[in-house]
């Protein structure tokens, strides 16, 4: 049982604020992923939870106790590092048992825990090897094993998959999720990869420039982002942002884009946007909601969207089509059978039930409550 909570946590380095007063509560056994671009303060936050960085201001609690001045070894945490940080002169089993040996655990207890962790991670055959005799994926398993044997209150992962190649990364991602299901421990995981964040997390914390932009379940972030940053960060390829003007035409609301393309909003979103009529706004539309023209599925409200492809990228499962609206580049995700060609005009279908309108000044998504 361990809850981790951060209250107005600030980290300042020589006048630069890396973390600017964040509040976050991570529930017991919850898997929370901190995600954001490099320099957003996510690693610093993790290292403050670990006790590797001092907290300039605010408080961090683990299991109800303020740990600001508690050294790392007494916080009952385990950490997995990006570069594994295995002790190169020790065997796998010595690496895993190092912490327990320092704490003078009985030998048979150490043996039992190491064997158990090795079984969970499927590294039973590697226990007598040295780290240099292992592949990247195996080293990462050992690093996780070292964390598991400690049986800590909190697991901390600092970009653990960044040093692996793409294929292994996907494999280890599944592995981490499986391990968390088998050994449910409160986990804080840092990554800059939004796919990792979405697939692993119970809740994702999107950070930018030292503050939390939004906290939510993966689907919530995907479907209802609150800021332009979150909308653009989650999802791949990222959301299209188009400058537009919101107009009224009789009862209907329309968004007019740069090229004179006008899209009629679905009736149910009229209410939400009525107060913004006449304003210059930004239309946010994901590539997957801008597709080839096809019969609308239930609930879909589609508007025709003319385009002339500049670049066509076949991905196998679908084909990405890039084109321009005014000066802005737009990406659409089409079925490969639509067979778009560069330079040949096509008409796409924009699923306007899934679109967002953003305030160009504040970057906030209209019709949602801002965080904090």
């Amino acid at each position, binding site marked *: 049982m361990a809850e981790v909570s951060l209250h107005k946590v600030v980290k300042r380095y020589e006048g630069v604020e890396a973390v600017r007063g964040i509040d976050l509560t991570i529930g017991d056994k919850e898997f929370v992923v901190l995600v954001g671009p490099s320099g957003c303060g996510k690693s610093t936050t993790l290292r403050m939870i*670990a*006790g*590797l960085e001092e907290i300039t201001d605010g408080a961090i609690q683990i299991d109800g106790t303020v740990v600001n001045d508690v*050294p*790392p*070894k007494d916080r009952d*945490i*385990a*950490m997995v*590092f*990006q*570069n*594994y*940080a*295995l*002790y*190169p*002169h020790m065997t796998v089993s010595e690496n895993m048992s*190092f*912490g327990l040996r*320092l*704490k003078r655990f009985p030998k048979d207890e150490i043996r039992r825990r190491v064997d158990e962790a090795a079984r969970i991670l499927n590294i039973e055959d590697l226990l007598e090897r040295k*780290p*240099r005799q*292992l592949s*990247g994926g195996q*080293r990462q398993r050992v690093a996780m094993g*070292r964390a598991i044997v*400690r049986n800590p209150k909190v697991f901390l992962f600092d970009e653990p998959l960044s040093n692996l190649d793409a294929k292994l990364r996907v494999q280890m991602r599944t592995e981490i999720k499986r391990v968390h299901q088998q050994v449910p421990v409160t986990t804080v995981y840092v990554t800059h990869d939004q796919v990792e964040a979405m697939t692993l997390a119970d809740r994702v914390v999107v950070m930018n420039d030292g503050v939390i932009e939004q906290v939510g379940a993966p689907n919530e972030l995907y479907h209802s982002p609150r800021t332009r940053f979150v909308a653009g960060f989650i999802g791949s390829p990222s959301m299209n942002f188009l400058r537009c003007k919101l107009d009224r035409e009789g009862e209907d609301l329309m968004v007019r884009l740069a090229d004179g393309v006008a899209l009629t909003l679905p009736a149910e979103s009229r209410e939400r946007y009525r107060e913004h009529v006449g304003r210059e706004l930004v239309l946010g539309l994901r590539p997957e909601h801008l597709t080839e023209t096809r019969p609308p599925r239930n609930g879909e409200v589609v508007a025709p969207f003319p385009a002339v492809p500049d670049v066509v990228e076949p991905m196998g499962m679908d084909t990405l089509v890039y084109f321009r609206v005014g000066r802005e580049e737009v990406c659409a995700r089409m079925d490969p059978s639509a067979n778009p060609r560069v330079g040949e005009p096509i008409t796409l279908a924009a699923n306007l039930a899934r679109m967002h309108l953003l305030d160009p000044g504040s970057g906030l998504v209209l019709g949602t409550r801002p965080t904090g």
Partner: protein
Amino acid sequence: MSAQTGSAAQASRAQPVRYGSMSRSRRWALRWSYFFLVLFAAFFLLPPFYMLITSLKTSAEISAATNPWWVFSPTLENYIELLTTDQYLVFFRNSALVSLIVVTLTMVISVPAAFALSRMKFWGSATLATGVFLTYLVPETLLFIPLFKIFAEVRNLTGIELINNWWVLLILYPTLTVPFCTWIMIGYFASIPKELDEAALIDGATWMQTLTKIFIPVALPGLIAATIFAFTVSWAQFLYPLAFTTSTDQLVLPVGIVTTLIKGDVFNWGQIMTGALLGAAPPLVIYAFLMDYYIAGLTAGATKG
């Protein structure tokens, strides 16, 4: 020129032609390296070889006008004479004692010092690290007179006689070895990823345990390099023992040979050469023994992830 192209053509017939130009430039690079290696080997090996030749000659043969590069009547007389006189063995014992104790002292001081300077970020640690290195840059030729003066003052104040005791070298040599060894070890410790001590910290290790259980084993090649350096410096040091020790029973090997085997303007070349040769043996043995381990450690460190 034609000979070159001829041999190149031969070579390209003999080997796959794919890397023809690569192998040609490689072959020339090899030839030049061998040329210079032989040149340097000759340059550095001729003096010891001449020492060996001379040590096997009688005094009469040394002074005779014969080919100096050949021994006409080899004899072990010099060796027997040197090794049966107590004097030479005393020098040897003094040298060995001083070097072993200095190496130990140096390691005991510089390894923790390097660890503290490279890892425990305390106020002024970077300045202190540079300061340590700057200390090494002050030559002993500049220091021996002030040191002599200090020792004289110490005697006046406390009555403790520091001069003309072999153990005073135990204080003097570390002023040369500690700064440099600390500097080497700072470099080695700096190459150890920061995450390794953070992992140890989270695993519950104290600073001391991190040093002894993680840093020392991981930086073993560096430790050996520093040990070799400290030993070589202590073993070969000449100026300090020359200045600070005078009685025959307090002398170390390099000074002992020079002061006892040169009597006025009489140079006992045979024994000087023998003494020097025997004196050069221990570092040679240590190099030969540790070098394998040293290189093994280096390559192991290079592939660590």
